[in-house]
């Protein structure tokens, strides 16, 4: 009888541990995506949409987030990422400003080198997930006729612009239709028309018309 009691208590404790493990470790992660958040220097303060978080694996709902790492003596690094199944890691690399910070960065150059490729990958994924049309460019249609390509503004290398060239009014109209059919947001993407000179505007403005 005592032996049976021991078995029952052991089973009950085991079930209790399993339930607690599920509640504390698994339940909060259901439906979320694991993202490794890496930072150098290690003791930099990291915030996610303004709330402080710890480096390492964080479980996040899919969607856009702003991550920021800052530390005294370093220039803060901020990145906006779109958390999806394609994104597994984000690296934040504040740049050294003070002498002490520069020395520390020099000592940890190998680590920072590894993290910078992760940071570049996350930024690249971010741009391509925000502007999926980039995966299909450059695109030409000789019957349009039109050609669509893209570039990045020098002042903000994360925001691309699209340029429609080798086109006529029919070609430009077809280019807009093609972009819309390929789910391009015609309002939040800067679209330039290379040969179009607006008959209404002054000539000096002509190449800046949208």
């Amino acid at each position, binding site marked *: 009888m005592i032996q049976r009691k021991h078995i029952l208590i052991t089973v009950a404790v085991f079930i209790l541990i399993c*339930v607690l493990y599920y509640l504390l470790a698994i339940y*909060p992660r259901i439906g979320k995506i694991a993202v490794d958040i890496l930072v150098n220097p290690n003791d930099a303060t990291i915030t996610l949409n303004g709330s402080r978080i710890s480096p390492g694996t964080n479980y996040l709902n899919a969607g856009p987030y702003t991550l920021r790492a800052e530390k005294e003596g370093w220039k803060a690094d901020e990145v906006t990422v779109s958390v999806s199944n394609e994104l597994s890691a984000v690296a934040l690399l504040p740049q050294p400003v003070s002498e002490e910070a520069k020395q520390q960065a020099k000592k940890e150059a190998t680590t920072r080198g590894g993290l910078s490729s992760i940071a570049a990958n996350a930024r690249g994924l971010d741009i391509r997930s925000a502007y999926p049309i980039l995966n299909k460019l450059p695109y030409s249609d000789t019957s349009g006729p039109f050609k669509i390509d893209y570039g990045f503004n020098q002042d903000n290398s994360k925001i691309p612009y699209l340029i429609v060239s080798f086109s006529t009014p029919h070609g430009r109209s077809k280019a807009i239709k093609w972009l819309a059919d390929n789910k391009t947001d015609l*309002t*939040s993407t800067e*679209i330039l028309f290379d040969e*179009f000179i*607006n008959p209404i505007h002054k000539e000096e403005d002509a190449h800046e018309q*949208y």
Partner: protein
Amino acid sequence: MSNTRKYILFFIVGIITLIAGYIVIYNYLNSTDLTINTKNISSYNVRLSGSIIYSSTQKNDVMRVPKSSHVSVEFKGADGYETSSREISIGQSPKSITVEPFYSKEHLAALAESERSSISKNINNYQADISKLYTLSDYTLYHFGEWACVTLEWKGEYSQNSDDQRVILKKESSDWKVVGEPSILFFYKNYPDIPIDILRSVNNSSF
């Protein structure tokens, strides 16, 4: 019932209570209050990740929604008002919003007819060449009739720059003013004073 069976039953009930209690407390701590006040709305649904989490016909409601989430309020407007939706971003703290639909398309179309001559006059005042080069068409009003878009259809022969364009106007103290100069497309950063939903609607009407 033997004592052993009683203990097993208590244990199972305890575990179920623990799980249910934890889930309720966890979800409560990870959610925040959203207060919705409505105006000119007959009913509305709140959607989270595609599923309806709340339906109401009341003018004021408070509900719990997950922190750091995005919800969509779909509403049916009263007579003369649109049936549409609004996207709302939820942060970490309680939020209060007022949802007020704009005029319905039918109501705006009727208003556009009465504003047509005033809009045309102001476009021609903006640039006299417009009436020589283009035919004004598709007078469309937005929101409460204070925004307008007109299509400029090229009326000459087909040439390298004979694209149709659009112009956006705003009614200020009963007078229409061109706020979005004639363009093929409008990039939102160049027009920070024009609501983005209007720019989207204008751009999407270009194809």
